[in-house]
């Protein structure tokens, strides 16, 4: 077992200063356009100031008017020059990132080569730390420049990044993870950690994913069978689709627990709750699978494409009765919800007339029952003129989606909902305005806005880190990931989340799961305790400690609490746990007493997951006892 090591921060700090200079001098070598833009902006500022003065000095009348006209022109020119400068600044900051990445890769390579010699290794480690710090600064500058040029939220200062924030990011943008994974994100620095999660397409897709089968079509010979025989065959198809629905739930839960792209699954879950559709309406598991794949494929892509996909989605068409929406005999269910719940928000920027017209635009949007694919019934589509949001034309479903995207309430509603899902329930109007401006500016591409959100001060604010009650899926998947449980029976996880009120593919209604406090009542809280306790009953916790030399019960409790909980433990509770754990034998006896020690450590973790604290996914400021240097996870888990 290795000794605990203290991380030396003063060393990295001085290196960072040196490297920051190096990077800025390198950037200067091709900074011609940036300098020119800066000079132009400064000139525009001067001109603008002069024009302002001219207005103030001018007498009323023709002079004043012409001075004011000049000022308006100068204002425009200044704005343009500022935008041009910010564009150059962003370009230059982005460009500085690649060399910094290269330098880090080189330093890491040198470190790997120096593995044999302790002296060389120390120097190489310092080089790596230096390079990492430089990359972090380059990324920070790029993020700041981008937030400014796109009008997004203010990024957190890289120096504010700590272990708790890394844990918060991993839990909210994913489903949590073991201490070493949190430590790795922490070590990467804020901006690289966010990129790692957001640019998930760089990670491999999990293997063994589910492939569904429609099983809807009847064979030609069936028409010669009697009614009872036909009913029997139909029943077998129904049974198949129900079984497939079960297998899909299991497979998705397993995917969430095992994926290396946690944000993709988290977003897929978000869209499933947003465009809520239930298997129970049509009992067509194939259609549900197709929809789930749509959410996954478009999870962080373009919201417009996603909305368009939903308007063509057989499961949604069936769920909201659009298969019964025809010219002359309309059903406005999908037309209503597409505005009210899926894009603009209830009562935000549309009239009752718009709802009816939206439904008319969607007439004939149907699906082929026998193969589960979208089908447009042109003869049942209402081809007459419609007036939507004040525009008139012979609109169809595609036009409807385009028109919806032009409404300002759409970007606001979507960003507010994403913000609430990922951060907290009470965003300031200004926050939503900034995020939605970014979404609109990027033509509804979600990724830049999400990246900016996960980098932002707001995302790591006390409000955000203080009030999220885990959904049943977050609770169970979080436990599996945090404690690295394998041999999990996902049938059990499925029935657990069902009993806790969240069965996948069966949200209670079109508004999705209510969430928040609605997840927890007296009965479900005990059930949460019991189900997580049962889940971890076979966890091997001794393995966690094999890399460290923790013999002190207080240090062991702190280690486990910090790994399992997202909130700090109160001192009295901590003391109870320390007292229960008692003195641990010296590490050389652990092998012989593995079962006994495991049982004791498991009792501690079981007690931790059976606390109100465990229901929260957050990280409020940490009390001093958790900040002791001997709890440096990076050092604990290095192999």
């Amino acid at each position, binding site marked *: 077992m290795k000794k605990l090591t203290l991380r030396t921060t003063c060393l990295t700090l001085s290196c960072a200063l040196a490297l920051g200079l190096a990077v800025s001098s390198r950037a200067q070598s091709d900074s011609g356009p940036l300098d020119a833009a800066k000079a132009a902006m400064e000139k525009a500022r001067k001109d603008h100031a002069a024009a302002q003065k001219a207005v103030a000095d001018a007498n009323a009348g023709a002079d004043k008017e012409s001075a004011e006209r000049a000022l308006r022109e100068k204002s425009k020119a200044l704005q343009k020059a500022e935008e041009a400068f910010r564009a150059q600044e962003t370009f230059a900051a982005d460009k500085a990132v690649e060399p910094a990445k290269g330098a880090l890769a080189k330093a890491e390579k040198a470190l790997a080569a120096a593995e044999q010699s302790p002296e060389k290794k120390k120097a190489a480690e310092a080089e790596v730390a230096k390079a990492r710090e430089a990359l972090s600064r380059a990324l920070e500058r790029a993020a700041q420049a981008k937030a400014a040029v796109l009008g997004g939220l203010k990024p957190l200062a890289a120096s504010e990044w700590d272990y708790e924030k890394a844990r918060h990011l991993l839990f909210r943008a994913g489903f949590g993870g073991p201490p070493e994974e949190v430590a790795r994100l922490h070590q990467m620095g804020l901006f690289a950690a966010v990129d790692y999660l957001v640019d998930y397409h760089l990670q491999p897709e999990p293997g063994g994913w589910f492939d569904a089968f429609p099983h809807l079509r009847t064979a030609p010979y069936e028409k010669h069978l*009697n*009614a*009872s*025989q*036909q*009913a*029997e065959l139909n*029943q077998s198809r129904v049974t198949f689709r129900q079984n497939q629905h079960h297998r899909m739930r299991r497979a998705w839960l397993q995917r969430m627990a095992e994926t290396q792209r946690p944000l993709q699954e988290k977003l897929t879950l978000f869209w499933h709750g947003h465009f809520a559709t*239930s298997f*129970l*309406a049509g009992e067509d598991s194939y259609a549900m699978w197709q929809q789930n794949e749509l959410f996954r494929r478009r999870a962080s892509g373009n919201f417009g494409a996603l909305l368009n996909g939903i308007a063509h989605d057989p499961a949604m068409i069936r769920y909201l009765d659009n298969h019964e929406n025809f010219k002359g005999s309309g059903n406005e269910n999908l037309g209503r919800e597409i505005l009210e719940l899926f894009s603009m928000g209830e009562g935000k920027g549309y009239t009752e007339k718009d709802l009816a017209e939206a439904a008319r635009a969607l007439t004939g949007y149907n699906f082929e029952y026998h193969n589960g694919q979208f089908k447009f019934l042109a003869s049942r589509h209402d081809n007459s003129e419609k007036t939507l949001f004040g525009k008139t034309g012979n609109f169809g479903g595609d036009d409807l989606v385009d028109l919806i995207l032009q409404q300002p309430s759409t970007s606001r509603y979507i960003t507010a909902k994403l913000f609430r899902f990922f951060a907290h329930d009470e965003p300031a109007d200004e926050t939503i305005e900034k995020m939605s401006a970014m979404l609109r500016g990027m033509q509804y591409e979600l990724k830049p806005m999400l990246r900016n959100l996960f980098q932002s001060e707001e995302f790591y604010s006390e409000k955000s880190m*203080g*009030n999220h*009650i885990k959904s049943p899926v977050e609770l169970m998947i979080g436990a599996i990931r945090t404690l690295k449980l394998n041999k999990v029976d996902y049938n059990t996880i499925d029935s657990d989340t*069902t*009993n806790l*009120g969240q069965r996948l593919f069966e949200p*209670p*209604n*079109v*508004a999705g799961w*209510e969430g928040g*406090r609605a997840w*927890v*009542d*007296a*009965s*479900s*809280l*005990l*059930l949460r*305790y*019991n189900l997580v*306790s*049962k889940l971890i*009953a076979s966890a091997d916790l001794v393995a966690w400690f094999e890399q460290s030399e923790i013999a002190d019960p207080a240090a062991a409790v702190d280690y486990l609490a910090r790994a399992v909980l997202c*909130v*700090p*433990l*109160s*001192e*009295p*509770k901590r003391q*109870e*746990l320390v007292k*229960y754990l008692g003195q641990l034998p010296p590490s050389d006896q652990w092998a012989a007493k593995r079962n006994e020690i495991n049982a004791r450590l498991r*009792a501690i973790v*079981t*007690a931790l*997951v*059976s*606390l*109100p*604290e465990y*229901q*929260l996914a957050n990280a*409020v*400021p940490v*009390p001093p006892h958790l900040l002791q240097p001997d709890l440096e996870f990076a050092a604990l888990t290095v192999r």
Partner: protein
Amino acid sequence: MSQLPITTRREFLTRGLGLVGVSAVLPDFLIRSSLAAPSGNRAPQVLVVIEQSGGNDTLSTLIPYSNKAYVEGRKVTRIPESDIIKLDAELGFHPRLKGFKELLDEGRLAILPGVGYPQPNYSHFSSMDIWHMADLRGRCPAVPHGWIGRAVEKGFGEKSRPILSVAVGTEKSPPALKGPRHAGISFKQADTFQYTGNQGDAARAELYKRLHDQPSARPGETMDFLARTALAANASSEEIRRLAGAYQPKVEYPKTKLARNLRAIAGLLHGGLDTRIYYTVQGGYDTHSDQRKRHDELLTELNDAVFAFQKDLQKQGLDERVLTFTFSEFSRNVKENGSRGTDHGHAGAMFCFGTKLKPGMRGAYPSLEDIYQVRNGALKHNMDFRAVYATALKKWLNIPSESFLGEQPGIDFLA
């Protein structure tokens, strides 16, 4: 309402009752811990709801055996006339409902034969939602709370506590129980309704208890909510387990799930728990194929469990306090299908049990001719289920329901 500043049981015990708002979150038996539990017929009246989940076939339960449409529509699922427990020249009980007949003869069963609602929904989950929410819109953002949850809120307001409504036999809280303040208490089995993480180890049980007696590090609003919920959960599970475990029924209950659940309810009633509405579920009524055998078993379980429960209450002297009724999300079609079963229909019978009711048929049997011409024909309702709820709430529990059920006609089935 002021926030409860108490978050641990120790604090509660040391600081006592002088705190405003305590009753909103603490289980009642903690508050009146020094008071003797009221029992016997003087304590407040209680409603027991039995959900027959899946859609019970009323035509095979309360059988219109001489009706032509029944005889012609039911070839395989028809109950042979000689087996039927005849009530008159037209109607009879399913042969397994001997206990129902006995209770009817004793004046302890009222039958509402044609209950439903306008514009029937033939989907299990939508129709079940309509019955749970008592709203034709079903469960949706505009209707976030169930009828029992809203009744408890109306009747108790700030004094409302989870223990007022208890669902036995289901870990998943029934939507009907969900109210603005809480969702009642739900558990699968009274004897296992407890924290099990300590695996029977006394030291770990002690650790669990001590941890829950200690305050949290930084109690924010959400943390307070969770800590108070934990306190209520631990206290109610202790009390429920104790009462159900100590209960000595005066009759022998069958060894079925429904009987076990009703036995637990009798135990909690006898023990003096403050619950006003109990809820339990008997599943399996979705008999699309080979209905006869399955439906016979279901009605046997229902009959035997309800009969034992009613007799037990009588012997315990609790019967005058308790009204029990059954419901199902819909009944089944007039004509059977091709797989010896029946598909989703509409109106169906509700059965009400108790000592203080007006026995017998309390409404007309729905027509088998004037029916919804969908699929194999669905019965039309002649009584709205919301009127039944409203009557039970008003006349039995003394809770007015106009504010959430609207103006409903009274149904004449209570004494």
